[in-house]
């Protein structure tokens, strides 16, 4: 069965807008901080839904290229999902061990992957 529109992320954005535009002005001042937290959480959740697993899949592709790992079979998505934690651990160990100090390639991979996550948690930072 197909879910009717609107999709989950759009629902969250709509609910958030209503919360902040309609509800917040009517609530006591003491509730303001809590409502803004709720709005922030809804925004992060909506952006994460919109991004889906694209950041993880792209990071995995970058890690596989870095380590020269070839896929063993053709189920690309589930393969990347299962590979990602192991490749991430390997990169963390290699960095800590000092074998990739100052590497442009590793830096680019890290920066790209981190920016993808910042797009979800705080995209305003990337506009500076």
């Amino acid at each position: 069965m197909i879910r009717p529109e609107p999709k989950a992320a759009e629902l969250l954005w709509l609910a958030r807008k209503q919360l902040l535009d309609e509800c917040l002005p009517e609530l006591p001042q003491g509730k303001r901080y809590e409502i803004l937290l709720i709005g922030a959480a809804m925004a992060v959740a909506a952006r994460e839904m919109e991004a889906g697993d694209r950041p993880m899949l792209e990071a995995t592709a970058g890690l596989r290229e870095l380590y020269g790992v070839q896929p063993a079979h053709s189920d690309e998505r589930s393969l990347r999902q299962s590979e990602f934690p192991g490749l991430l651990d390997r990169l963390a160990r290699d960095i800590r061990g000092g074998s990739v100090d100052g590497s442009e390639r590793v830096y680019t991979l890290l920066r790209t992957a981190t920016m993808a996550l910042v797009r979800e948690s705080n995209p305003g930072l990337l506009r500076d």
Partner: protein
Amino acid sequence: MQTKELASLEGFLRVVSGANRVSVTGARPLAGGAIQQNLAVDVEFEGGTHSGRQGLVVRMDAPSAIPLSLTRSQEFHVLRAARAASVTVPEALWLCEDPRVLGRPFYLMQRMEGTTLGSRIVKDLALGGDRRSLIARLAVELARVHTVRPPHPQLDFLEMPVHQPALDAVLRYRRCLDDLGVSRPALEWGLRWCERFAPVTSEVVLIHQDFRTGNYMVDGDGLVSILDWEFAGWGDPMSDLGWFCARCWRFGRDELEAGGIGSREDFYRSYTDAAGRSIDEASVRYWEVMAHIRWAVIALQQGRRHTSGEEPSLELALIGRRPPELELEVLQMTAPGAWAGS
């Protein structure tokens, strides 16, 4: 606070103050403080050392803690040591380690009135008096903190650095990541840079370790108090300057490198004059990198307090989502060009 707890607190206060009668006339939670819990209490003392109406703060452990923070007893003693060094802090009055009183250790301190909210202080120029005077004053306060040196009889619980403070910090945050069981390659990149470029210091002093906008109180005239001493320890004085100037603590006023409220030059000048100690600018920049790593580790720990079920909290959950922003700053400060020489 429940009636039974109020009565218990009154009983404790009667004993420690020597009052004939104590009445807690008001109690309300104070905002902020994701790590500890603060209660504002209004107390009437009949007789004793604090006769009259007093505004106090009860500071106690939150239901779950993070590994890097001091106990209430330790914090109490740090606060007293800071006050003895003429740092502007609330007076720490009474410490209670008996769990029968309020269920967990707590202490009471003088309640100050003012604003601590960092995002408000950086935007509202009506707060804090003249900004250049405020920056100078904060530098003087920090210089006073740094006059407290080991060994100190009331602070023997603070651990001395095992190696150099910088390398100790690298090892500490690697251990934190291992204990959390998380792989954060961007933080590992920053930590490896910090390991390679660790400054050497000949001085170990008391450091606040959370001296930043958001942890001092101001009113319309200027500084009221330096707060939140739960991370204090022995370390490199430049690390406190690095934390204060770190971009993550400027609340969006990135051009005002000293705490989002003033220029780095003004802050450095006042600190140097007050401390009689020159500033190692490269070392401060190093500690700014470490500041972002440290805040990211703390944010991961805060997030874990929520995800573990120990302390379900939207605020903690959101803090736990912040590390990528801090990691991006770490990466930008430790780009490949920053690795030349060591």
